[in-house]
Every structure is written in structure tokens, then in C-alpha cells.
């Protein structure tokens, strides 16, 4: 083969470049939002024990539930309250339901979304609660 040296130099540059992204991600970023095992740690709302579904379901499928609520509320007019697992009644609404307990988008929604690099278009229209200095501050 010709240019063996060049090929290896090129490969080396590629490997370094690829690894540098990982290194960059490890070196920067808000460590506060992460658990000790390195996974994101969204902050649960204080004073509310349970969500409308079990945590495992909410972690994987909250977007499915939100889409279902959206269709039910807007298209079918089913605006009745929903009961949380803990027995609280909440509005079937992202803005007036979910975010009434989860008062900080930054500390709840964004932590996982940023980790997973997803950019849901919810916030193009729906308003996040005003982040108070306390909620912005890392604990």
C-alpha cells in the first residue's frame, strides 16, 4: 500500500477528534444536575410525593402521556382533572398541570433533555414558570 504513514496520521487525527468530544463533555457541563453515577438527576418537586403515573412510566413515556392529554383536551374536550398516584387532583395541562408541581423547568425538564440532547418544541408556545433565584440556584 502507498501512503501508509499518511493514512495512519489521518486515522490518529480522527480518533483524537472523536475522543475530544467525549472529553469535552466530561470536562464541562453543570455537574450539579447529575447524580453520583453520572446520570442526570432531575429535581423532584418538594411537597409532592407522586406523579400522575408511576415514576418508571413517567421517565420513559411522559411525552406519550402529554400527547394523549393534548388530543383529549383540545380535540375531544375532555378537560376533567386527573388524579395523581398519591390522590392529588391536577389539571390535564402541561403549563397549568405538570408545571404547577414541577416549578422549575431548568432543574426538572432540561436536565434530562439536555443530557439526551432532545429539544422538544413544547416551549415554542408553552410558557415555563418564571425561574425564581432559589429555583435557579444549585443546591
Amino acid at each position: 500500500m502507498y501512503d501508509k504513514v499518511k493514512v495512519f496520521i489521518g486515522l490518529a487525527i480522527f480518533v483524537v477528534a472523536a475522543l475530544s468530544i467525549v472529553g469535552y463533555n466530561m470536562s464541562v457541563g453543570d455537574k450539579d444536575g447529575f447524580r453520583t453515577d453520572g446520570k442526570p438527576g432531575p429535581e423532584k418537586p418538594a411537597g409532592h410525593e407522586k406523579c400522575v403515573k408511576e415514576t418508571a412510566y413517567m421517565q420513559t413515556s411522559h411525552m406519550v402521556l402529554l400527547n394523549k392529554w393534548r388530543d383529549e383536551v383540545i380535540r375531544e374536550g375532555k378537560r376533567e382533572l386527573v388524579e395523581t398516584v398519591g390522590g392529588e387532583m391536577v389539571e390535564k395541562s402541561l403549563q397549568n398541570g405538570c408545571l404547577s408541581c414541577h416549578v422549575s423547568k431548568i432543574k426538572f425538564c432540561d436536565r434530562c433533555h439536555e443530557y439526551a440532547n432532545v429539544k422538544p418544541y413544547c416551549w415554542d408556545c408553552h410558557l415555563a414558570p418564571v425561574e425564581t433565584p432559589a429555583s435557579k440556584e444549585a443546591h
Partner: protein
Amino acid sequence: MDNTRRKFLKLAGLTAAAGVGATVIGSKAMASGAPAHGAPAGHGAPAAAHGGGHGDVATGVRQAIVIDTGKFNDNPGLAEKCQQACHSYHNVPDFGNPKDEIKWIWTDKFANVFPEHSHYKKDDRISSMDIIAMCNHCENPPCVRACPTQATFKNADGAVMMDFHRCIGCRFCMAACPYGARSFNWRSPRGVDKEGHPFIEKMNPKFPSRMRGVVEKCSLCSWRTKKGLDPLCVEEANKTAADAMIFGDLNDKDSKVAKLLRSKFTIQRKPALGTKPSIFYII
């Protein structure tokens, strides 16, 4: 009558989905329109348009508003208050120019709101009056017919709704609406003008804004009416002048609107188009 036509159109739609040439369907659908109409809705139908018209069986809820224009005329600034109540709650932006304008409820002169009722020798009161205009929540909404994604649709209460999540921004509904009730987000409503002044002066955290590229309009406050509340404009109007706007179910014989419509002469906007508006005006 209407029912058979609708069934036929649905059948025609299904056939088309099965892959039959669209021309055939088009011509069939057109042909079916003619006999089903019987006495065509188009010609001199104002009388037929009230209360459902055409011998329709009144089924389900049909939300409606009666607007007493005289009460608005006696209370200058009342219509603006209604608009303010609506627009500020619903985060309707103000771009400060007619090109980008978004409005859910507004006023215009009699000749513009009722071009087909207008004539040369109107009395001075009518000529000078500002009349409230808004989405008519038609029983036969042309916008719903036009929408290619069902982003705009009729809900169970008879209100014509928008699903902003689904709208692709083709603006076919705006071409279809004979009342100019629809607005498009030509630019981001969350932006700021040259002086840095936001288009939505004060965001209402209880309600979403919209994003650019979707159509919006009055939703007859479906989020309120479900809870038994009047639409915001109606509530605001009645604070100043009792019964300036009356909201209720047209199909409920005993509702206030139904009784009022039986006892008072009212008009609708462009009834000859067969859209059957749910907004009635006492002039």
C-alpha cells in the same frame, strides 16, 4: 338532507383513498351537492339560516353568542375592553402594523362587518357604529373543510377549534374563511420590535403563546366554557352593560340565547353563504 350528502361525501372520500382518480370523485362530489341542496342555500337564504335552518334536527350542543350592538354603542370603549380581556389572556401579540396583525376579536364599521346588509341610505347611528367581529363558529365552517390536516375542526360544543400543534401553516383556512376571522403568525409572536418592546406586552403564564408559522383565531374560550364560565369577552362586556353579549347553547330551547333569538330580530354575517354562523347581532 344534509346527512345523506355528508354520508355520500364520506363514501366518496373513502373511494378516493382506495385510489380511484380524483377527477371522478371531484365531479361526483359536485354532482351530489346539487340535488341534495334542494332549495339551494345560496340564493336568498337569510331567513333559512337562523336556528339551524333547512330543517336540520338540532342535535348536541351548539354554543352561540348574541351581541347587542346597541349596548356597545351606548358604552363607548366597551368593545376595546372585551378585546383587551381576550387578547391579554390569550397572549395575542401586537405587532403594531396591519401586515403582521393578529386578532381574535375586533371592531369594524357596519358596512365592513355586514357588507351584504349595507346600502346607501343607512341611518346615521348604523353608519357610525363600531361592530364587534370575531370567529363565527359556523355550523358549516369552510375553514374546517379546507384544512388538510384537521388542525382546525369543530368540537362537540360546536366551537371551531385550532390545534396549533398540528397546523402546517398552509393558510388554506384563511382563504376559505369568509369573515376574515383568522390570523397567521408571520413572525415569532415572542419577538421584540426595533425598540426592544415585546410583541406580547405581558405574558399570561396561564396560557400558551403561539409559534411562528401557525394560524390562530378565537376558540370561543373552550377552556372556560367547559367549566361553565362565559367566554372572556362575554364576561367582560356584561361587567359594564348587562346582556351586551349573551352566551349559551342554541340547541337548548330554554337557554337564554335560544329564548332571545325567538323574541328579537337578529342578523348574522353573510348568511347567504350557507355557513350558518353562531354569532348573532341585535342591531
